[in-house]
């Protein structure tokens, strides 16, 4: 944890609540983005990200300032996403149906851009859908959010060995899926 974050945590714990904004601001987009990948829905993602911020403030006194704040924050997010998924009565990894996804994106960014984004998202989700929930969490944290293996293990509350095992399995499955269903995206070509 860097000195800036450490200082902000100390200020919050001594009663300066305004320091919470600067502490979490660098993670603003990443929190929501990761929540979106876990839930597959923009509204659900906002709920999960909000829950993460609420819990992080509430339990800040439990945070060990010698460790990574980012990993701790992502750990809270992973738990919040799992709980959210359980509350919804479905796995946290399951996304909404394809037409609903595309409709949501078209509304957000216009029909043409929405269609293009929908296609991208469709391919991405198709690749991720072959993974088990744990493989998906590991893959997203390591390969998409670029946490290292130790940080991902801390965020998931598991060991580095377990992360490596799931990561290896996830990459194998994704490679197979791309070869079978989306060979055009290999080499960076966009259809």
């Amino acid at each position, binding site marked *: 944890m860097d000195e800036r974050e450490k200082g902000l945590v100390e200020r919050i714990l001594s009663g300066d609540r305004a320091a919470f904004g600067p502490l979490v601001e660098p993670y603003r987009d990443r929190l929501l983005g990761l929540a979106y990948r876990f839930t597959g829905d923009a509204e659900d993602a906002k709920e999960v990200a909000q829950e993460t911020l609420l819990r992080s403030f509430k339990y800040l006194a439990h945070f060990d300032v010698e460790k990574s704040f980012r990993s701790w924050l992502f750990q809270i997010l992973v738990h919040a996403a799992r709980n959210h998924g359980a509350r919804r009565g479905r796995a946290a990894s399951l996304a909404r149906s394809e037409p609903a996804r595309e409709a949501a994106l078209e509304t957000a960014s216009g029909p043409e851009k929405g269609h293009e*984004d929908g296609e991208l998202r469709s391919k991405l989700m198709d690749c991720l859908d072959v993974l088990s929930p744990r493989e998906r969490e590991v893959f997203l944290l390591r390969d998409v959010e670029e946490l290292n293996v130790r940080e991902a293990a801390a965020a998931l509350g598991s060991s580095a060995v377990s992360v490596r095992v799931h990561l290896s399995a996830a990459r194998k499955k994704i490679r197979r899926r791309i*070869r079978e269903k989306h060979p055009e995206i290999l080499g960076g070509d966009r259809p």
Partner: protein
Amino acid sequence: MTCRAVRRALPLLSGDDLAVRKAARVRAHLAACADCRREAEEYAAAREAVRKLAREEARPAWTEGEWRATLQRAAAAAPRDRRRMPRLRPVLAYGLAIAVAAGGAVAVLRKGPRRPPAAVLAKASPSPAAGFIGPVLRRPAGPHLTTITFDAKAGTIKVVWFFNRDVRTDFFGK
């Protein structure tokens, strides 16, 4: 390394997640094996393709209002002070131990030493040893205290058993 062992390691190599020594051995094999190298390139390309899709995909974003409202809501809650939260397990363990000890003490005190009924005393051996007269049952201080006395037939020795319901103590004396 064999091709089989190398291929098992390729998924982790594609993200540079192998231990340094093992990675060096795998790379040495790849330099000499075109088939394994092709597979390694596929892993790297697949990983990069998914990362590219993820970067390009539209993602939801906070509006300024949503972000501020969330921060205000979070900061409005009282942060939980770790020091004020006693750990529950030790508290429960101590509580349980105290309850068991207190329960045992109450049970012993309520029961007290059993008073021998008169019929039992009547059938009992007439004396603690040959040469004694007794037993003589008395209640010198109400129902809580019972004494049984044996007098020596010869000499001045007297054995008195006290049964006190309130105090668990035996006295021997003349």
